[in-house]
């Protein structure tokens, strides 16, 4: 069944990110040490609307995970704003932020690393309820059992330890823990990348079902463009700390404007032999440059198939090329000569 094209977002944004920057200092800085600054997130501005799933795609090291964590203040921003319900999360103190965190949760990639191995499932999920003072005693235990059922697990599993579960089941526990505090917004940080292929669809379906049931808003971070296309309302493409393109789901895939987006889409192998044989790929040259010393001008120009002299000089403006279709490229939409 085909979905009607997602509409252009309406209503007030749930989260507004303004000129967000997260810089890391690396190197010891001590005797003979050389310090360098990594601009992991470098001036992002975007909105996340209530009830939507905003996809954030890009290759490893592009800053997508750091963006998610900075929004949640798990990493503090260097500058910029994250406006949530009229308040700038970057300005909140630790105590206030902790209280706020009930409404903003995260699901991690690696279900093996994100659950404490010494705690029973009951404690892992129940602690979230205890910390936020939401329930105690018998009520808390009942809620945990309810949550397990919600994510498709046997309530009797509450007494077990994480190592007794498969990857997919652990991810369900991680989801139950995030859901426990009744959040409004969840950052899903590569939630299915570590799972077996035959289990991925189960978790994708679960996330979609929960979104509908509880009216959740997701920031869905992934490197798999096929999965993002399936689950997201809008998609942002990131490269070396910056957004290259942001558009509604059908527009980004059907009519990508940025040469990086186009090459990413064309690089995804498709399980169809005839199509694979006839497809013409845009194969990018070289590797992603180091974020310690990003290229001048447009950060993508060193690998761009349509780069010109201007691209090395001038940082392209982040502009709304078409309604709700944003891009940072001097030559957005120009055709690419394919190999």
């Amino acid at each position, binding site marked *: 069944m085909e979905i009607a094209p997602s509409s252009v977002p309406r209503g007030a944004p749930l989260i507004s990110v303004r000129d967000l920057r997260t810089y890391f200092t690396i190197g010891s800085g001590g005797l003979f040490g050389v310090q360098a600054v990594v601009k992991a997130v470098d001036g992002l501005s975007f909105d996340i609307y209530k009830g939507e799933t905003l996809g954030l795609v890009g290759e490893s090291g592009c800053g997508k995970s750091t963006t998610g964590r900075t929004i949640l203040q798990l990493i503090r921003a260097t500058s910029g704003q994250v406006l949530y319900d009229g308040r700038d999360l970057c300005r909140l103190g630790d105590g206030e932020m902790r209280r706020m965190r009930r409404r903003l949760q995260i699901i991690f990639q690696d279900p093996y690393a994100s659950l404490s191995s010494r705690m029973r499932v009951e404690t892992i999920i129940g602690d979230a309820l205890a910390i936020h003072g939401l329930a105690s005693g018998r009520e808390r235990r009942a809620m945990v059992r309810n949550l397990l059922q919600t994510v498709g697990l046997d309530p009797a599993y509450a007494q077990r330890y994480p190592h007794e579960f498969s990857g997919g089941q652990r991810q369900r526990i991680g989801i139950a823990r995030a859901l426990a505090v009744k959040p409004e917004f969840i950052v899903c940080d590569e939630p299915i990348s570590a799972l077996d292929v035959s289990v991925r669809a189960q978790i994708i379906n679960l996330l979609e079902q929960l979104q509908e049931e509880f009216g959740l808003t997701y920031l869905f971070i992934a490197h798999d463009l096929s999965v993002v296309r399936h689950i997201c309302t809008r998609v942002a493409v990131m490269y070396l700390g910056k957004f290259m393109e942001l558009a509604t789901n059908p527009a980004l895939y059907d009519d990508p404007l940025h040469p990086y987006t186009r090459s990413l889409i064309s*690089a*995804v192998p498709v399980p169809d032999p005839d199509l694979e044989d006839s497809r013409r790929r845009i194969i990018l040259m070289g*590797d992603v440059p180091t974020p310690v010393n990003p290229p001048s001008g447009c950060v993508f120009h060193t690998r761009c198939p349509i780069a010109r002299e201007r691209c090395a000089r001038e940082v392209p403006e982040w502009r709304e090329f078409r309604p709700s279709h944003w891009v940072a490229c001097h030559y957005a939409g120009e055709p690419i000569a394919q190999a």
Partner: protein
Amino acid sequence: MTSGGRLLEVEGLRTVFRSTRGPVMAVNGISFHIDAGETLGVVGESGCGKSVTALSLMRLIPDPPGRIVGGSIRFKGQEILALGNRALRDLRGKEIAMIFQDPMTSLNPMLRVERQMTEGIQLHLGKNKAEARAHAIEMLRRVGIPAAERRIRDYPHQFSGGMRQRVVIAIALSCNPSLILADEPTTALDVTIQAQILELLRETTRASGAAVMLITHDLGVVAGMCERIIVMYAGSIMEEASRREIFYNPRHPYTIGLLKSVPRLDRPREQKLPQIEGIPPDLARVPAGCPFHTRCRFVTDLCRQVTPQLREVQPGHRVACHYDVTREEAA
């Protein structure tokens, strides 16, 4: 695509690992072949036995805890399971080369690339040091390493992930092997680098005439790379066919389920992904009968009791299933 005669013939291969929970049947009696010059895809999830199969072919199963307990592996007519250490050394790297998922697994971080390349070339091709060095530089050039005569002096960590995998491919190709076992060679790489490496693998093996066994969990990768495909599950082969048959006429419920459950860029979006229920079995406790029966929507009592054998449903298309899905799919 110069397919010749039988290069490799595997029959009834069984590889078992000892574990605290009892024996783990990693590879449970599989039979298949690879022809000279062809690219065979082996698809499956983690734990299905695809990597253990590759390691078994090279006799690289760590013993203990692992052991090849049965079957036969004939390479160019020679029984690999009967070879002594010396013959094995001549085989590995020269006749059969391997590319792993993580290039750091196959590269020694303490040695310059030069040393790691020339060692094998000198040993297997009988070249002297200078000749081996020249050959190594030529191989690096062929896989697209810029300034190869300088970079050959570098250590592995001085290369990026994609460049490192190119070095591994150069090493694999350097003694002109007739078979390359590539175990998830692009899984650790970003999608734009994956496209580069797959293209390189395709071009270089086509030029050298080497056969490739490409192991992956990614159905898209095999669709573009392989002429024939084997689908594995819980240590057994579920289906084997040409790539067109696998993708356009799959006959095993597991293959069909997998193909339907992945979101695809080339199809309209679906409301809900058709999912396979349940989880892959614990290999220390593989269920009786068909290993997939606990998750199969066509399961019958027969499947719970009798392990289906691979049977030919069309020339070159083999399926291990009691059920004929074509009846259902037609409806």
